[in-house]
């Protein structure tokens, strides 16, 4: 399946668009990283692609159906969203948080069914979180919290998952755990759109990369073609050097002057 965006334009303030004719396809079985500086439009793009904001111009298509033509409930069964932060006012357990992912399947005046519970349990298992089932969310570490949110997205049963900076504020090991988990669910058939501030994570975990700059996409392609010093310098405005071992770049670093 393909989640296709065509010529998206979005402006929070009239006359100052943060997305200027952005077109990008997210595909099943692919992890697409969105890179680019702060304010370059990555999060706004994810919001539009997930149907949470209506673009001013352009359209979002799932296969050939406009995403806007689905009801909120239908849309939530197709496209899931994993926020960067989740701060519940009460100390829900991991299980209770993940079960909320079943919201699009629970009818208005009813409770989660046995099927919903099974799906939530499956999502916990898929991310090896069975042991955290009854742990209150506030007692979890940053990495565990992020994994629980990914599990909630998985429980949602959507074909596409959009993740807003899932690697932010995590230590390297936890970044690896979360992004590896995303890779694993993608290998099972999902499509993922991941915004990130780490070009190196894109090199490690992405199948494709879109590089944003000032509301436009500078380049799209495989990581080794996009995460390159010249393109990164155009996007971020500082020089980079690539560190590699002959099979293309392994990492990029700001080049010190």
């Amino acid at each position: 399946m393909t989640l296709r965006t065509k010529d998206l334009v979005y402006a929070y303030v009239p006359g100052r668009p943060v997305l200027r004719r952005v077109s990008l396809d997210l595909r099943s079985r692919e992890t697409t990283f969105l890179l680019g500086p702060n304010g370059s439009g990555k999060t706004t793009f994810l919001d539009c692609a997930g149907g949470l904001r209506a673009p001013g111009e352009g359209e979002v298509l799932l296969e050939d159906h406009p995403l806007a033509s689905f009801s909120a409930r239908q849309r939530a069964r197709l496209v899931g969203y994993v926020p960067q932060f989740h701060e519940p006012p009460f100390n829900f357990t991991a299980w209770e948080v993940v079960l909320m992912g079943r919201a699009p399947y629970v009818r208005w005046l009813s409770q989660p069914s046995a099927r919903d519970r099974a799906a939530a349990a499956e999502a916990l298992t898929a991310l090896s979180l069975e042991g955290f089932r009854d742990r209150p969310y506030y007692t979890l570490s940053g990495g565990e919290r992020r994994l629980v949110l990914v599990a909630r997205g998985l429980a949602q049963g959507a074909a596409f998952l959009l993740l807003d900076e899932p690697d932010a504020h995590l230590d390297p090991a936890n970044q690896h755990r979360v992004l590896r988990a995303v890779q694993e669910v993608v290998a099972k058939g999902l499509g993922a759109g991941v915004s990130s501030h780490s070009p190196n994570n894109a090199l490690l975990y992405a199948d494709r990369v879109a590089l944003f700059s000032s509301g436009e996409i500078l380049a799209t392609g495989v990581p080794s073609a996009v995460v390159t010093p010249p393109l990164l310098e155009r996007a971020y405005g500082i020089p980079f050097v690539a560190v590699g071992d002959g099979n293309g770049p392994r990492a990029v670093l700001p080049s010190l002057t």
Partner: protein
Amino acid sequence: MRRPTFAWGVLLLPLPVVFLALMVGRYPISPGEVWAALTGGEVAEVVRALVLRIRLPRVGAAALVGANLAVAGAVYQGVFRNPLVEGRLLGVSSGAGLGAALAFLLYRQPVVVQAFAFTGGIAGVALTSLLGWAFGAGVLVLVIAGVLVDSFLSAVLGIVKYAADPLGTLPAITYWLLGGLSGVRAPDLLPLGIASAIGLSFFLLFRWRVNLLTLADQEAEALGVRVRVTRFLVVGMGTLLVASAVSVSGIVSWVGLLVPHAARAVVGPDYARLLPAAAGVGAALVVVLDTVARTALTAEIPLGVLTGLLGAPLFLVLFLRFLRERGGWR
């Protein structure tokens, strides 16, 4: 830590409490006599009248008021993502107080007072919602609108009190505002009963989905929840519960704030279990407190005063626990 699943058991807690409350009073009645009066058995006519006509309406009203305030408080805490609010957040009590005061000023009949208080409470929240909706229907906007409306209606209430006859009407208004169930008679139960049946059964069915409103708006939208519509429906149902309770009992503070936390401590924060538990604990608590209010002294203690006396220290304990859990004030 697996949470116990006896939330539904808590819902039965009011039954024995109500039975005990029917026995207690200036004229004590034995359990056998209460049972006989309730089931139509053989008992002195005066005892039957006392149990069925005098005590049962009052105890029943106490149970409904407690359940309504507790359920609405729990729901409001979720909807407004703030553990320290209760159902009176959006101007329901100042609206009801103003309505009641106007009724005292103009008509002085209990039924009219109840109707005016109910209408005033709903109108207060409607005004808040209108303002909130006009400014984008966000949670914070609603809270600010609630503060505005509450303060404005309280000022108008002040004018009504100032204009009231200081020997007749003013004491009646003041006493009503203190909160209490001493004036409750059987007919007063009908509107309260209908409103409670609608509101409580709605939340009994909707209870799991209240969880979704505790999420950030965008998170909930991403899960397919139509946040604005759902929030206004839930706030509306909560208002129905609070306004119907307040119109009978006057201002009874703290129950809506503290009971949900007591219930949460036992069954956890999941609304699927929390709401039945809060309803049970709230009903039982207010029946107990109202029984104390009518029996502890020869004169009636206003129920609102009693809940205030108990509520403030309990709130302090709760707040300290909240601080410890969060590791300080954010």
